[in-house]
C-alpha cells in the first residue's frame, strides 16, 4: 500500500508530465487532466486490482478502467506510463505523427492500457456497462471503473446508459464524474445547468459517493467507499468535486485552460509550482 505522501508525489509528477506534453506540441487539454491527476493516480497506484505485467485488452481477471472524456488523454497516458504499461520516454511522442499516444485515445496501435477509443463524448458509460456485463457473464468478481466530465453529462446517450445501469442493477460498475463546473463555453450552469446531480442519480437508482477529487486523503476514502458500496444491487457513482487546472495557480478554475496549451513561458511558470518527484521523461 502506498502512503498518501507517495501518491501525492506521483500525482505531482503526473501534473508535470501533463504540462510538458501539451506544451511540447502546443496543443491538447491540460485543464481537466490536471484536475483528474489525483483520482487517476489513486486508481492506478492504489485502488484498482491490475495485472500490468500481463495486460490484455479483454481485461479478464482484473479491474478495468474506461476514460469516457477522452480529451484528458494526457493524464491517462502519464499515469499508464508511470505505472509501467509502456516506457515513460514515449510520453514525448504525444500527438506527434506516428505516435501511439493519439490526441484522443485510440486502440489502433495497441497502446497497452487503452481498451477503447474515446473522444466523441457520452459513449464511455455504455462501453463500461458492456464490460461490466461481460464480467458477470464470466463470473468474474472484478470491477469496472469509468470517468466522465460533468459537461459530458449533457449528452443524451449518458442518460440512456444511466437508466439502463440502474434498471439492470449493474452493480460491478463505479462511474466517477469530474464535477469541476466548467466546460468550453463557460460554466456548466451558464451553458446548460446539470441541476441536482445527486438527486438525478438517486432517481435513477444509483448508489452515491461524494468526495473532494483534489485531496488525496479524501480521494482514497471516497474510492474505498465506492468499492464498499459496489455489488450491493446498484451501480455506484462518485460525484467528485475538482478544480479544472488544479495544481497550477494561474490555470486553476479557469475554463480557458480546457483545451489551451501553455506557451513556453507559462509552462516554465507552471513547472516551477510542481516539484519533479520521479524524474521527467
Amino acid at each position, binding site marked *: 500500500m502506498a502512503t498518501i505522501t507517495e501518491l501525492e508525489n506521483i500525482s505531482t509528477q503526473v501534473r508535470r508530465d501533463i504540462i510538458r506534453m501539451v506544451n511540447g506540441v502546443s496543443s491538447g487539454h491540460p485543464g481537466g487532466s490536471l484536475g483528474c491527476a489525483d483520482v487517476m493516480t489513486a486508481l492506478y497506484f492504489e485502488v484498482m486490482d491490475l495485472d500490468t505485467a500481463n495486460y490484455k485488452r*479483454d481485461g479478464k481477471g482484473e479491474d478495468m478502467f474506461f476514460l469516457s472524456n477522452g480529451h484528458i488523454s494526457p493524464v491517462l497516458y502519464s499515469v499508464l506510463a508511470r505505472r509501467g504499461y509502456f516506457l515513460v520516454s514515449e510520453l514525448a511522442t504525444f500527438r506527434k505523427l506516428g505516435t501511439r499516444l493519439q490526441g484522443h485515445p485510440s486502440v489502433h496501435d495497441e497502446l497497452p492500457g487503452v481498451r*477503447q477509443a474515446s*473522444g466523441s463524448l457520452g459513449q464511455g458509460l*455504455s*462501453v463500461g456497462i458492456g464490460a461490466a456485463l461481460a464480467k458477470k457473464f464470466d463470473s468474474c468478481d472484478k470491477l469496472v471503473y469509468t470517468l466522465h466530465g460533468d459537461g459530458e453529462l449533457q449528452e443524451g*446517450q449518458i442518460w440512456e446508459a444511466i437508466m439502463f445501469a440502474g434498471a439492470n442493477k449493474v452493480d460491478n460498475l463505479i462511474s466517477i464524474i469530474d464535477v469541476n463546473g466548467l466546460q468550453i463555453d463557460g460554466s456548466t450552469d451558464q451553458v446548460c445547468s446539470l441541476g441536482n446531480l445527486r438527486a438525478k442519480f438517486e432517481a435513477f437508482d444509483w448508489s452515491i459517493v461524494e468526495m473532494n477529487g483534489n485531496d488525496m486523503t479524501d480521494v482514497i476514502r471516497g474510492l474505498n467507499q465506492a468499492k464498499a458500496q459496489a455489488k450491493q444491487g446498484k451501480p455506484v457513482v462518485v460525484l467528485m468535486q475538482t478544480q479544472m487546472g488544479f495544481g497550477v495557480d494561474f490555470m486553476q478554475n479557469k475554463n480557458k485552460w480546457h483545451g489551451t496549451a501553455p506557451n513556453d513561458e507559462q509552462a516554465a511558470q507552471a513547472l516551477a509550482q510542481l516539484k519533479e518527484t520521479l524524474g521527467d521523461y
Partner: protein
Amino acid sequence: MKEYPQLGSKDTRSGFGEGLLEAGKRNENVVALCADLIGSVRMDLFQEAFPERMIECGIAESNMIGIAAGLALSGKVAFASSFAAFATGRVYDQIRQAVAYSNTNVKIAGSHAGITLGEDGATHQILEDIGMMKMLPNMVVLNPCDHNQTKAATIAAAEYDGPVYIRYGRPKVPVFIPEDMPFEIGKALVLNEGTDVTLVATGHLVWEALQAAKILEEEGISAEVIDIHTIKPLDNEAILKSVAKTNCLVGCEEHQYNGGLNESLAQLLVRNNPKPMEFIGIDDSFGESGTPDALMEKYGLKAQNIVEAAKRVIARK
C-alpha cells in the same frame, strides 16, 4: 440458363433469426442486444434458447451500440439489432468510434432495410445504410439475397473476428439459394454464366436479376448474373473477370446509387476497365408508403427494369 427453382417464400429477417440461433449454439460467447424489437428483428428464437444471453436495452440504440462494444472488447461476440434505419443512421457516431475505429467484434444487424419495408414509409425505409457502413474503415458489409443466404451470412458473421454490418428485410421473398450453398465473406457467387451483359445484384434484387436473365435469354441475350452478398470487401476479381467477357454491366440494388453497390462498381470499372454501366436503384430520393411490390415497381427495381437497362447498356458498347 442455370435454373434456380423457387424453394418457398420467406422473409430474410427469419434467416437472420435462425442463423443467430445456430451461432449461439456453436459459441457460448455469442450474445444478443436489442432495442425493444426482439420479435420484429427475429431475435426471439435466440431469446427462447438463451434467455440469459439476450440483453434488452429498451428504446436506446446509442447505449445499445456502446454496451455491445464493451461486451465485444471483453471477449464476447455481440450482435446488436434494430430496424436498419435506427441501427445505422441514428447511431452512426457510436458505430464509428466504439465499433469501427475501436475495431470491436460487434455485429450490427439491420432489419427492415430498404424500400420493401413497405407501408411504414420513408422514416423507416433506410436507403443510405450501405453507404454509411461501407465508408467506415474496418467494417465488413453484408447484404444477403434470401432466407437461406441470410442464415449462412449470419453464421459467417459470428465466426468472423471484427465489425460487420448485416442488412436484411421484412417481406416474404422467394427462397432460391440452396441450403448447402457455401458462404464465404467477400466471395461473390456467379449464379449464371453469360456473354453479352453482366448483371451484378445484391439483396432482394438478386432474384429480380435472375428473372431478368431469363427474359433476356428468351430474346437471345446471354446475361451473366453475379450475387454480391458482400458489398465490402467487394469481390473485384469476379466482377472484372465477368466484365472482361461481357464488356458492360448493370448494377442492381435496393438502395441509393450514391454510396451503394453501384458506386462501388463504378469505381472499380473506372479504375480498371472503363466500360458502359447502367444503374438500377434509388436515384437520390426518399421512399414512401405502399406495398413492397408496388414500391419496387414505382421505383424501377423490377426484373423488367433490369431487362431494359441491360438492353440500353449493350447498345452503348
